[in-house]
C-alpha cells in the first residue's frame, strides 16, 4: 500500500501519532524540492512527486477513520461499493429516529442529544481501536468486514454530531 510505503511503515491499522508525524517530517525534509533545485530535471520531478505522495499519505493516515477507509478501499471494501442493503436496518431506523428527534428538539434537548451522539461516537472509536488491533495481529478479510460495519455506523453518528452542533450554532446566532 503506497501511503504506508511512502512513510516507511508496515500496513497496520493502529499507528502511533507521534511516530507518524516524525516520519512525515523526516521524509518531507529528505524529498524537499528545494534540495533538488540543482539536480537533473528527472530527479526534480521525482522529488515533487514524492513530496505530493508523502503529503497525501500523512493527511490520510493521521486520521484513524480516513486511514481505515484507505486500507478498506485497498482491499476492495470501499464505502461506495456498499449498497444500501448492506447497512443494517436497525442502524438506519435508529439514525432516522435520532434525526427526527433532533429536528423537533428545543435548545436544551439538542445539547443533550449532542452529548449522547458524542458518547456514541467515542464508543464506536473505542470499538474501532479493538478491531484495528485484531486485524493488525492477524490480517484477514474476515477481520476487515467488522471494520467496514463500524465505519459505516461511525459515518452516521459523525453526521448526527455535525448536525446537532450546527443546530446549536444556528440557535445561538438567532
Amino acid at each position, binding site marked *: 500500500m503506497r501511503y504506508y510505503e511512502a512513510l516507511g511503515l508496515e500496513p497496520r491499522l493502529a499507528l502511533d501519532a507521534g511516530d507518524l508525524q516524525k516520519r512525515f517530517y523526516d521524509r518531507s525534509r529528505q524529498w524537499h524540492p528545494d534540495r533538488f533545485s540543482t539536480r537533473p530535471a528527472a530527479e526534480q520531478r521525482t522529488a515533487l512527486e514524492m513530496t505530493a505522495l508523502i503529503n497525501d499519505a500523512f493527511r490520510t493516515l493521521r486520521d484513524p477513520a480516513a486511514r481505515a477507509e484507505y486500507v478498506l478501499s485497498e482491499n476492495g471494501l470501499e464505502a461506495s461499493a456498499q449498497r*444500501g442493503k448492506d*447497512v443494517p436496518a436497525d442502524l*438506519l431506523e435508529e439514525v432516522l429516529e435520532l434525526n427526527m428527534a433532533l429536528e423537533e428538539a428545543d435548545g436544551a434537548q439538542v445539547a443533550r442529544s449532542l452529548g449522547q451522539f458524542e458518547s456514541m461516537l467515542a464508543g464506536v472509536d473505542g470499538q474501532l481501536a479493538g478491531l484495528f488491533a485484531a486485524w493488525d495481529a492477524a490480517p484477514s478479510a474476515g477481520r476487515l468486514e467488522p471494520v467496514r460495519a463500524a465505519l459505516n455506523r461511525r459515518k452516521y453518528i459523525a453526521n448526527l454530531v455535525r448536525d446537532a452542533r450546527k443546530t446549536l450554532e444556528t440557535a445561538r446566532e438567532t
Partner: protein
Amino acid sequence: MAYSDKVLDHYNNPRNVGSLDKADQNVGTGIVGAPECGDVMKLQIKVNDATGIIDEAKFKTFGCGSAIASSSLATEWLKGKTVDEAMAIKNTDIVNELSLPPVKIHCSVLAEDAIKAAINDYKAKGSTRKPAAGVEA
C-alpha cells in the same frame, strides 16, 4: 457544484414529506442508507387493496439536496401507479428528470432502493392482509 432548477425546486418545496402508519397492513415502508455520505431515506406507500393502486406516498430523508429531491420526486411518481408500475421505476429516470451530475447518481440509486424496499415490505405483509371487500377468505 450547482444544483439543477428541478433539484432546487424539490429541495425548497419537498412534496409529500411525512410518515404513514408503519403498522397499517396496506402501508409498505422502505428505509435505506448510503454509508459513504451518511444519508438515510425513509419512503412509504399506501396501496388501495381494491384497485392495487398506490394512493399515498410519503418520505423523510436526511441527506444532501439531491437525496431529498430524488425521494421527493419518487413520491410524486408513485402516486397513482400500480405496484408493478412502481417497481419499474429506474434510478436513471430520476437522474434524467433531475439532471443529476455523476457524483450524485448514488442519490437516485438510493431512491430506487427505497421504492423497492417499500414495495417488498408491502408485499411481505400480503399474507396477513385482510382480503379485499367481497372476497371470502
